[in-house]
């Protein structure tokens, strides 16, 4: 896993730090958007499982998670 560039960042104010976090998040979103569809689909399946686990932990009904079997085109 790549080192988090924010972990060593030192700036003058909390607002600047928050700004850096938001920039990093935005960059992360752009990186995700630019991935090939099959790779994004893998991330999507992971996301589905995370959401499902969270719902289960909260005692809420769990929707059907999609099978991993044909997820590597």
């Amino acid at each position, binding site marked *: 896993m790549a080192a988090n560039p924010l972990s060593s960042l030192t700036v003058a104010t909390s607002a600047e730090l928050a700004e850096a976090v938001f920039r990093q998040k935005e960059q992360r979103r752009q990186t995700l958007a630019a991935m090939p569809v099959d790779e994004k*689909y893998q991330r999507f399946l992971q996301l589905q499982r995370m959401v499902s686990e969270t719902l289960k932990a909260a005692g809420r009904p769990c929707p059907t998670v999609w099978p991993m079997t044909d997820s590597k085109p």
Partner: protein
Amino acid sequence: MEATLRVLNDLESRGLLTRYAIGGAMALLFHTEPVATFDLDIFCLIPETGPLVTMSPLYDALRKDGHTVDAEHVLIAGVPVQFIPAYNTLIVEALHEADDRKFGDTPTRVLRLEHLLAIMLQTGRPKDRQRAALFATNSTFDEPRLLDLLTRHGLFDQWQQIRSVR
């Protein structure tokens, strides 16, 4: 999902669907970052056999092929699919202009990002407005094309509202 798409292609080749395209959150995956969803929204044109439109032949065939119909979904190869018949001119246009794409080795169709944005604005649920605002900021779309279709479908004001809260 590839197995699911093969079933959808088969339904189209058998004439049970006139034309289909992936919509909703899964369509966004083809254009931008992944977002969570638990169902596959399939926008479709249904063959018209008389004065009434019915999805019965489609659902009957799916049941006969061993797929489980559960409330508004049909479970196809493990994926809950929601068939949404084209209910207005925007959806019909979106279906006709959908992109031909491939998922793995399987050909499919995906609604264009401009149409997805317009449908989100038209539907207007809080989650649609939220997604529209997000993708309006971060996605690469054909702006003249989007403005043209928003104007034609009376959605320009909704778009201006989304843009103003960016």
